[in-house]
């Protein structure tokens, strides 16, 4: 967990006295406003059909306010939710309940609750789909098709369209590599270079997994610089096998010998 700036310390402490069990969280751990609300509701074992809007609004604002790196694209959606919460809070304070055509009470929170419940289902289903045995992660199929000597497997036909798609993916990867080639120097980068090399001795690693072993923003940044330096020196390779896929780090191999 990354440390919180001193200027924000007061607000966080406030929140923590209110909710001693709630550990501080980073915005980038969430998949959007609904994800944050569900986290707050489930973590504190609140009744989803009776959400304490005032508390949730305060906690929600605290989380989005604490992230200074929020970019404009994403910020909009978080802010829309903040104003929805504010609006709910004021509607709940109305002296007389709102009524539907049949004269029943309307709970202004219903729409939000329905949205939260629906999203929560898909969040769970996504986790379950992730756990299904997946091809090339848990399951492998036959990789070559040599048949008995009596059968010659015909060779596959040329397929220009498929080649162009493969071509596009290769080019995209290459341009991506060029764009990221930036080098900076710093004192502890040297140590992190040793750390990265040591971590990769056992085989390739996901960038994400490597960072996972480190604590704190400074360690992450330094390690990133170390990776860039190793990459520039062609000691390691940084590969993204598919668009949006994880980034794989591996030591450069040359005819099966590791060059260091």
């Amino acid at each position, binding site marked *: 967990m990354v440390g919180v700036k001193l200027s924000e310390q007061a607000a966080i402490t406030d929140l923590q006295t209110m909710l001693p069990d709630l550990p501080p969280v980073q915005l980038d751990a969430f998949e959007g406003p609904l994800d944050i609300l569900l986290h707050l509701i489930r973590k504190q074992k609140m009744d989803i059909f009776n959400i304490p809007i005032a508390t949730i609004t305060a906690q929600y604002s605290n989380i989005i306010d604490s992230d200074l790196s929020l970019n404009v694209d994403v910020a909009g959606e978080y802010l829309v939710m903040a104003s929805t919460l504010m609006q709910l809070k004021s509607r709940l304070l109305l002296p007389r309940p709102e009524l539907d055509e049949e004269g029943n009470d309307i709970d202004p929170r219903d729409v939000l609750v329905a949205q939260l419940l629906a999203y929560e289902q*898909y969040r769970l289903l996504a986790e379950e789909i992730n756990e299904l045995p997946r091809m090339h*992660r848990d399951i492998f199929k036959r990789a070559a098709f040599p048949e008995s000597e009596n059968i010659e497997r015909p060779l596959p036909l040329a397929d220009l369209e498929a080649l162009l798609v493969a071509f596009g993916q290769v080019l995209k990867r290459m341009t991506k590599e060029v764009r990221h080639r930036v080098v900076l120097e710093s004192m502890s980068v040297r140590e992190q270079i040793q750390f990265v090399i040591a971590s990769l001795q056992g085989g390739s690693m996901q960038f994400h997994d490597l960072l996972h072993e480190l604590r704190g923003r400074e360690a992450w940044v330094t390690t990133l610089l170390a990776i860039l330096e190793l990459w520039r020196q062609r000691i390691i390779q940084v590969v993204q096998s598919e668009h949006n896929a994880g980034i794989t780090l591996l030591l450069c191999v040359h005819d099966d010998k590791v060059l260091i």
Partner: protein
Amino acid sequence: MLSQKVEALILASDEPISFEKLRLFLSPVDASKLHGALSILEEHYAGRGIQLKQIAGGWQFRTAPAYAGIVKQLWQTKAPRLSRSMLEILAIIAYQQPTTRAEIEAMRGMKVSSSIIGGLLERGWIKVLGRKDVPGRPHLYGTNKQFLADFGLNSLHDLPDSSQLVDVDGIFQERPTASKNP
């Protein structure tokens, strides 16, 4: 003898081979006998390092999940982890298909990036089924055969929990009125 022939055909096919195709290549053959041969084989491979599975409507030999760690070494690289957003969007498309990007966005309360849709299309897990007849005529997305094949499903009915999906609208018609707690 029949089950040996079936075994050879399944091994030689580079994608899951359907019952109908097997029947065609083995004709004349009784459908019931072919079913019998497949069950015998399925049982024969249960608990081995190789499994015979019915995937995406066809039969295929695959390594047993228990040996993933060992088999992975063949490629010197780990399968990339799927991001949470990619998985969530894939799940919504799988269960809600046909669905549009705007519907996915409404469900998640969050914009859907083109690169994630592009990534899912590139992997062959989703495809454009057509366009929705509403202003803007947005694309309708659904899952593809490759999705079933890669996630080891025979059909969409094998998706986890699909029968337990809660009818969110139904909840509000039945629940007792909660007291307000601002």
